[in-house]
């Protein structure tokens, strides 16, 4: 039977494999290959061996700061962001009060483009005319308003707040998983006298392990591409306080005109992403279904 279907399987897989090779594999080979070269726009790459990588790990403070910021954001996104999304999903799954309205409102920031959200926050936090500082000025005699995005003390958190609480995608994925849990399980638990809290804690959450693991991977890896909002709000500043690896890649390639070095950072970013995904897969035992 398997042998009979093998031809069809190969036939249907071919377009995907071909697309993968053309779109991803070739790009990856170019990225990896040119990361060992000195290459700037309009010129041919010149092989320089491990020079880019040696410089990257020994003599580049901006890279270290970018990698650190990226790491912190990945951790925050995989924990706080996913926790907020999960909590919201569990609350919404109870289908109480105006849950459909709440779900729709919660979805809004996720359907607006990153650039527009950045612009919105820039206006809200503007020290001259922003709503937040206007409210701050209403209290007390002294003017406590400040330049949230350009103050070293607040910049990192201000940028983080533009995406961290808006976990609608996580909520929707988890809501779908909750909906797939057989109703008979809840009924049995209720017959045994379990409260809603205990049902959530001992039945729903353990059964969500797979999907939470998937959400952690999705949320964490989204931080490996985060660029638009940061560019709109702080541009990586003040200094390099909010610089991350994608912005560093952009700056090295397009501002320094150093594509070879930029690609070595790209290779590091891919490696970082792969390790993160593998760790999450093992941690959440994604794919196994022992419950």
């Amino acid at each position: 039977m398997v042998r009979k279907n093998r031809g069809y399987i190969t036939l249907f897989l071919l377009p995907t494999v071909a697309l993968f090779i053309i779109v991803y594999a070739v790009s990856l080979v170019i990225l990896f290959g040119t990361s060992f070269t000195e290459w700037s726009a309009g010129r041919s790459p010149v092989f320089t061996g491990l020079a880019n990588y040696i410089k990257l790990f020994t003599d580049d403070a901006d890279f270290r700061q970018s990698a650190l910021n990226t790491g912190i954001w990945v951790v925050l996104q995989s924990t706080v962001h996913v926790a907020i999304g999960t909590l919201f999903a569990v609350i919404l799954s109870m289908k109480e009060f105006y849950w459909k309205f709440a779900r729709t409102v919660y979805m809004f920031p996720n359907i607006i483009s990153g650039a527009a959200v950045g612009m919105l926050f820039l206006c809200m936090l503007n020290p001259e005319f922003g709503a937040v500082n206007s409210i701050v000025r209403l209290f007390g005699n002294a003017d406590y308003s400040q330049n949230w995005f350009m103050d070293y003390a607040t910049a990192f958190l201000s940028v983080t707040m533009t995406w961290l609480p808006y976990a609608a995608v996580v909520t929707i994925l988890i809501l779908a998983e909750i909906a797939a849990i057989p109703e008979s399980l809840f009924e049995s638990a209720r017959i045994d006298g379990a409260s809603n809290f205990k049902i959530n804690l001992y039945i729903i959450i353990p059964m969500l392990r797979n999907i939470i693991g998937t959400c952690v991977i999705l949320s964490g890896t989204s931080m490996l591409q985060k660029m638009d909002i940061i560019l709109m709000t702080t541009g990586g500043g003040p200094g390099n306080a909010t610089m991350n690896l994608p912005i560093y890649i952009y700056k090295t390639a397009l501002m320094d005109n150093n594509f070879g070095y930029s690609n070595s950072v790209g290779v590091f970013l891919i490696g970082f992403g792969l390790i993160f995904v593998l760790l999450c897969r093992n941690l959440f035992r994604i794919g196994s279904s022992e419950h």
Partner: protein
Amino acid sequence: MRKSLYKTGCTLAGMLMLTMSITACGSGNSAENNGAAATAGSGNAAAPAAKAPVKISYLTFRVGTHASAKMEEEQIKQFNAKYGNEVEVVVEEIPSDAAYVDKIKILAASGDVPDVVMGKDGINDVLIKGNLATPFNDYLDKDAEWKAAIGEDALASNTRDGKIWSISDQKQNIGYFYNKEMFEKAGIKPAETWDEFMSNNEKLKAAGFVPLALMTGENAWTSNLILAAMIGTNGDNGKAFMNTLHPTDFNTPEMIKALNMMKELLEKYTTKDALGAGYANAANAFSQGKAAMIANGPWMIGDFSDPAKSSEGFDAKVGVAAYPDNSLISTYEVGYMIGAKTPETRDAAEKFIKFKTGLEGQTIALEYGNVMPVSSEVQPSDALKEKYPIMVESITVAQKTQLHYRTLDSIVYPNVTDAWKNLYPKLVAGRATAEEIAQELTDIAAKNK
């Protein structure tokens, strides 16, 4: 055995792919793109008399709310009316200066630039180094009228090793605009020395006004104009620095002194949102009467009577002044370059650029974009003078100044221009001294490839 053969095959295929990929990436230097070696005008001989218009690609950022959008639209419209049967300009609109620069650089990396390119913000360097542009020497040698319309100085500013790589479409004479009402209330007049300039700031502040509309986001434009003036007026070394293309050493006493002065301005004499603000914020602060001064060029004049940007009658309150020490930023734009690869498209690109930068194009730019022409033959019409009296004032101020220097944007590497947005906050927050910022600028310039 089969397994080992399979592994060897895969390895060979991978190596082949890598080699092909790298070779493909470097195709920017192929014979086809050997633009610098091409001779201009070679397409004329082969061109038949009647045939379909030659298509040329042109990307522009002067669209939408851009100050020069009207000018661009009018130039293309008039070009089409005159030469539409010979050349078809395929316009792609990029609604952001920064996005335009990024896109051209990415295209240059693959050796595929548009036929007509505006060489701003380091694009000219990339195209010249990558052998992706055709110099204008042959074209200009055949057309004395066009050469005269641009002028020797403008041509010299874009000449390297005897090759004219781009044609300037405008001269930038940049001083600063001030709010006459606020100046009167503070009892001051435009400063003649930097001490007086700082004292004016203090007097304006004491009178309850914010003295300066500064911004450090984007390319820190309005702040860096003042920084350039501070450096350019600081003796012969300062003037020389501000007229040097691609300075690599920023560790100079002039730069350090100017950075310290800028720190004071950003700390004490500007709006609270100046750190990180974009051009629009600074322009708005001045046009809405929230700040007394803004450093900027004549293209802003139209905004003062635009009801969407300024209050009614605001244009009557605006005066224009030179920087202290009777000095002014005076520089030629990089202008347009030929990126076309075939003789036919090169000739068509040259025709389009000639129209834009010739007397007709300069007139349109002046009338529709308040852009200073490079030729003295092009003068503002009576209607324009009546509509924008401050334009006449700007020209008079420019004629009276004796000391001239360029903008920082026009002399430094693009990665230095990009760095200001992160360095100014560092300076103001006290995370780095002026000396350390100067060293960082030097290091950043050294990173440019």
